[in-house]
């Protein structure tokens, strides 16, 4: 029985990203949507997914309705297995204990580089964004999933500033810079699931969100996007996923609809 479920773009991104997180793995989640999405995965298909937060938390079970607006506050430690110093929890990535880093993206380019620092000139920016936080470390040291809204001004050819490194200038440049592990795995938007061409280190369209078309994706992307041969269509959020999501974020603090 096909029930028409309704969801907004933010909910779609959140649910679609959560699906990528496998049971038994370790995910380092940033504040905001990544945090919500990781907890959603834990409450649905990935019961033994271990979440790490920058504040210094291993394996918490955050309470529904009490999602904190920072990964550095005490509610993030709810029913945690371990609480440890910030530097030490970040170093777990350097040691290789983290399967996925999970970030939001303000501006991402074709190489998966993320900018969360400067729009415009570095010295006199139009917008000074909040900065890297643990983002640079996550992107330098782990395989990364980026969750974001799909807009031309957000998916750009070249970011104004590489806060969190993707494949830098493509090809072998990431490894040559010294970043021999990690790299961007997927970028999940409300229109598409984007992967990377392994050799070129360049973003490509792998899957379409329900209802999206290649044309629409291309229209909303700031560079010429490669399309993979075996393009698939992702399935829509299920009632169950939405139900759990709404329990987790009843006030819609993280899943406010964003303009199409």
């Amino acid at each position, binding site marked *: 029985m096909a029930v028409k479920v309704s969801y907004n773009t933010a909910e779609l991104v959140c649910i679609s990203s959560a699906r990528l997180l496998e049971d038994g793995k370790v995910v380092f989640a940033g*504040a*905001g949507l990544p945090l919500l999405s990781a907890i959603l995965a834990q409450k649905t298909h990935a019961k033994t997914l271990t979440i790490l937060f*920058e*504040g*210094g*938390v291993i394996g918490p*079970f955050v*309470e529904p309705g009490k999602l904190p*607006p*920072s990964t*550095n*506050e*005490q*509610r993030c*430690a*709810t*029913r945690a297995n371990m*609480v*440890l*110093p*910030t*530097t030490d929890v*970040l*170093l777990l990535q*350097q040691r290789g204990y983290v399967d996925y880093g999970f970030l*939001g993206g303000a501006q991402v380019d074709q190489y998966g580089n993320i900018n969360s*620092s400067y729009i415009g000139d*570095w*010295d*006199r*920016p*139009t*917008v*000074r*964004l*909040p*900065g*890297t*936080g*643990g*983002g*640079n*470390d996550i992107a*330098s*040291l782990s395989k990364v999933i980026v969750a974001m809204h799909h807009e031309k001004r957000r998916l750009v050819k070249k970011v104004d*500033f*590489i*806060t*969190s*490194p993707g494949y*830098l200038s493509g090809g072998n*440049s*990431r490894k040559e*810079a*010294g*970043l*021999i*592990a990690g790299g961007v795995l997927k970028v999940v938007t409300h229109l598409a699931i984007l992967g990377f061409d392994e050799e070129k280190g360049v973003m490509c369209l792998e899957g379409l969100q329900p209802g999206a078309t290649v044309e629409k994706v291309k229209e909303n992307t700031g560079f010429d996007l490669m399309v993979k041969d075996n393009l698939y269509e992702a399935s829509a959020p299920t009632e169950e996923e939405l139900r759990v999501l709404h329990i987790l974020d009843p006030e819609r*603090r*993280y899943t406010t609809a964003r303009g199409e």
Partner: protein
Amino acid sequence: MERSYLELREKVEKKDKGLREKVKSLSEAVALIPDNVHVAIGGCHYSRTPMALIWEIIRQRKKGLTFSKSITATEGDLLLVAGTTRHIITSWFSPGVTWGVSRIMRHYVQSGEAQYEEWSHMSLGLRYKAGAMGVPFLPARSMLGSDVFKRLSNVKEMSCPFTGDKLALVPALNPDVAIIHVQKADPYGNAQISGFPFMDKDIALAADRVILTTEQIIDNSEIRRTPDRTDIPFFCVDAVVEAPCGCLPHECYGVYEPDFNHMDMYVKLMMEKSVDGVKEYLDKYFYGPETFEDYLDLFHVKDIVKATLSAKKGYGG
């Protein structure tokens, strides 16, 4: 600002390291901080912020301070608008994702009036750790290739002499003063932190001087019953101030959650009126009250009771 190893050691060697009482008033403690020095702030974002000390620093009209903090929240706005600092070393700066980007940070940084020196979170932690360990740098595999790295003047790359791996070298950060809030400390400065340790142990060891505020001063005999819970040893510490609710409106793990109503009120004011809004806030909450107790009195009891109850229930569920 870079000092030699022997200069750094000298500061520490000259400290009176005897087991002696160091309890001071907020104003006495803050008087230990000169102008134009580097102050590291303990806690992270809006958790375990030494707000009582920041409150007093602003009131004493300190000038030319450089601050470093792992993640900077509303206290960064206040220090900028009060004119206390024009240079903040941190990895992230805003009240929190749901509240948006700080207009104050944007105002001062976009105009070039203030410098927000951006390090990756781990790199900043390693800088403190190098400072705490007494080495001039630590190697890392982060920041390489990024513009964060390019924009910094005091980082280096090296090829590892053992493996040939390319590594980032981050320089030690040894603040002149560390200001840290803890749940418990004895009169000598032995401090026990509950919950998130953040970078505070490293900050305390890296700094020349350490000023502690504590929710509660406890007897030294209590410390000695659980010495494996002590996070900061007394001989690092120069002043201990008893400051219950010393983080408000920010949180203190296990004691109170943030006062979110107050935070919402502040952010609204700041986002709507920018610098003028924060000036209003400073007038009312920082310059107005005569004592820190009077500052606390401006909060709503019902909010504090709620924040306290939630925190005390704990998170062990």
